[in-house]
C-alpha cells in the first residue's frame, strides 16, 4: 500500500526517539565503563561512583529507557492513528 506523508513522519519521529534513547544507553554503558576509574574517585552515598553505576545506576537507567520508549511510542501511535485500538 501507499504510505502517506504522515506515515513517513511517524517513522522519522520513531527514529529520532530511538537515536536519542540509544545515545543515553551508550553513555551509561560504554562511556561510563571507559571512565570507570576516574568516576571511582567520586564517592556517592558511600559507593565509588563508577562502581555504583555499573552495579545499579546504569541498570536502573536501562529500565527507564525502555519505559520511556514504550510510553512515547504509545502516544505517537495514537497521534498518527496507527495504534491498534484498546487491546489491554
Amino acid at each position, binding site marked *: 500500500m501507499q504510505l502517506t506523508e504522515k506515515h513517513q513522519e511517524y517513522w522519522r519521529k520513531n527514529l529520532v526517539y530511538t537515536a536519542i534513547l540509544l545515545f543515553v544507553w551508550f553513555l551509561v554503558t560504554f562511556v561510563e565503563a571507559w571512565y570507570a576509574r576516574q568516576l571511582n574517585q567520586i564517592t556517592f552515598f558511600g559507593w565509588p561512583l563508577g562502581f555504583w553505576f555499573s552495579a545499579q545506576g546504569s541498570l536502573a537507567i536501562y529500565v527507564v529507557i525502555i519505559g520511556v520508549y514504550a510510553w512515547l*511510542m504509545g502516544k505517537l501511535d495514537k497521534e498518527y492513528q496507527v495504534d491498534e485500538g484498546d487491546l489491554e
Partner: protein
Amino acid sequence: MSSQAFSHAEFNRQLKKNYSWYTGGFILFILALAAAEQMGMSRQWIGYWFLFATIGLYAGIGIMSRTSEVAEYYVAGRRVPAFFNGMATGADWMSAASFIAMAGGLFIGGFDGLAWVMGWTGGYCLVALFLAPYLRKFGQFTIPDFLAERYGGNIVRTIGIISAITCSFVYVVAQIYGVGLITSRFTGLEFGVGVFVGLGGILVCSMLGGMRAVTWTQVAQYIILIIAYLTPVVWLGIKHTGVPVPQLAYGYTLQKVGELEKKITADPKEQEVRKIFADRAAAGREALKDPAKAHAEGKASVDKAVADAKASGDAARLAAAEKAQAAYPTSVAAATSTYRREAGLAARAAPPRVHAEAYPGKDEKTRDTARLNFIGIVFCMMFGTAALPHILMRYYTTPSVQQARVSVFWSLFFIFLLYFTAPCLAVLAKFDMYTNLVGSSFASLPAWAANWAKVDPSLLNITDINKDGIVQWAEVVIGQDLIVLSTPEIAGLPYVVSGLVAAGGLAAALSTADGLLLTISNALSHDLYYKMIDPTASTSKRVTISKVLLVVVAIVAAWVTSFKPGDILFLVGAAFSLAASAFFPALVIGVFWKRATKWGAIIGMAVGLGICIYYMLRTYPFFTNMGVPKMDLWFGLNPVSAGMFGLPAGLLTIIVVSLLTPAPSKEVQDLVEHVRYPHLKGDTLVSEAR
C-alpha cells in the same frame, strides 16, 4: 474489537487473581514447613518437600495448559498480557548461572564481574528499541521465520535454524547440569538421578502445552525464584546495614570492606601465609625446570630422613618419615603434576583484591587491557541478549505491538530486581566473612563455615597454613556457588530458607531449560519440517512432531550433560558471541534498511559467524591444545568476546554486499513497511499466523 478488548481485560484480571492466590499459598507453604522444622522435621525431608511440591506444581500447570492447537502451542495464543510476559521472560532469562553463580562471581571478581551484570541487563534496551515491536507486528512463530520471510529463500532459513539450535543447545546443557547439581545437593540424590528428576520436571511443563504451558509455569517459577533470592539478602542486609532494602544502603558497607582489605593486606600474619604460598610456588617453578632431577633429589631426601630416624631410634619420628616416604610420588610424571599445582599457588600469594577498584593492574597497559575486556564482555552479552531466539520468541506472545513494548519494560524490571541485588549480596557476604570468619580460631569456626567445609571442599576450603590456629583470609578458598547457597546460614536463618533457595535455583534452571528446549524443537518442527520438508502437513501432525522432537532433544541434552562437560561459563559466553555475530545485524538491518538484500544477509551472517568461530578456534586454549595453530590475541581481547569482531564484520558485509546486489522486490519492501507500523488502515498484508 470492543468485545475482544473486554475479554483481554477480563483475562488479565483473572490472571492477577490466580497468581495472587498462588503467591499467598506459596508463602503459607514456606511458613508451614518452617513450623514443621521447629517441630523436628529433618533437613532431608524439607529438601524433598521443596523439590517435589514445586515440580508437582509446575507439572500441574503444565497439564492444565495442554493443547494441540498450533497458535496456542507455538505462541500461547498471542494473549499473554505485558506484565505476565515480563515475568515469564524474566524466568526464561535468568538461568541457574544467574541465580547460583553470579553473586559468587562478583564476590571473587569485584568490579570486573559487573561486566556480566551490565551486559545481561542493557541488552534489553536493544531488544526494546530494535526488535520486540517489529517482530510482534510480523507475527510469525520463530526467528528463522522472520529471516526467511524478509530475505527470502531457504538458505537464510537454514543458517537461522543452525544458529538457533547451536546457541540454544549449548545453553540448555548448562541448565540441565545446574538442575542435576541442585537436586543432588539438597536431597542427597545422585547427580544422574537428579538430572533425571529435573528432566521429568522440564518435560511435563513443556511437552503437553508448548509455549502456553511454558509461559504459565515460567510466571509461577519467577515468583518462587525472586522470593527465594531476596529473602536471605534482606535478612543479611538488616543484620549489616539496619535497612530492609540493603540494595540502597550497602555503599557504606562497601567502604568498610575497603578498610578491612587494607587491614588484611598489611596484617603480618596474613603476610606470613602469603609468603609461605609465594615460597612454595617458587620452589614448584624451580622444580618444573628439571622435574626428573627434582624428583630424584626429593626421593633421596625422604630416604635419608627414614635412615636418620632409624639411626636415632625414635619410633614416632620413624613412623612420620616412613609415611612421607610412602606418600612420595613414584613417577616423575606424578611429581610433575604436584610441582605444577605448587607453582599455581602463586595466585594465593597475592593480597586480597580491592573490591570496588576498576581494572586493577600493575601498569597502565594491563589496566587498559582489563578495561577493553570489560567492555568486550558488556558488548557481546548485550548484543547476544538481543539475538537469542528463546528470548525474542517471547515477544510473539503478546496481544499487540504496544503490549510487546511494555512487556520489554516489565521483563527488564523483573530481571533488574535480581541483578541489582547480586552485587549487594556479594559485598554483604564479603563484609561478613572479613569480620566473622577472618580472625576466628580453627577450633571454633562459624557454624556455616564448618558445615560447608565439611560438605564440599571445592566450595569452601580452610586450611591452617601457618599453624597459628587462627583463620587468615589467605587461608580461605571459596567456590563461586558458595555465596548464594550459604547466605541463609550466614544470615542465621533456619534451614527452611536454604530449602527455599534450592527451590529458587531449581526454578531458574527449569524455566530457562523449558524455553530453550521449546526453541530447539520449534526450529526443527516448524522451520525445518513444516516450512522446508512437508508444507502440506496438517496442524495436528505439526504439533505432534514438535512434542516428539522435544522429548528427543531433551534426552540428547541430558545425555551430553551426563559427561559433565567442563568450562560451562565459556560455553555460555560463546553462545552469546555467536548469537550476536550471526543474528543481530541481519535482524535489525532487515527492519531499518529496506535496501538490505538476500545475499547481503546470507554472506553477512556467514562472515559474522565465521570470524567469531575463527577467533575462538585460534585463541581458546581448549582448541589450541587440540592442535589448532595458536594465534596471538587481537588487542588482548579474550576469546569469549569474539563477537566484538564478528558483529561489526557481519554488519559491514551486509551493507557492502547489499549495495552490490539489486534492491529487494516490491513485496519485501512492503513487508518492511508493514512491520514498522503497529496498525495501518487498509493494509492488505496480513502476516500474522494463527
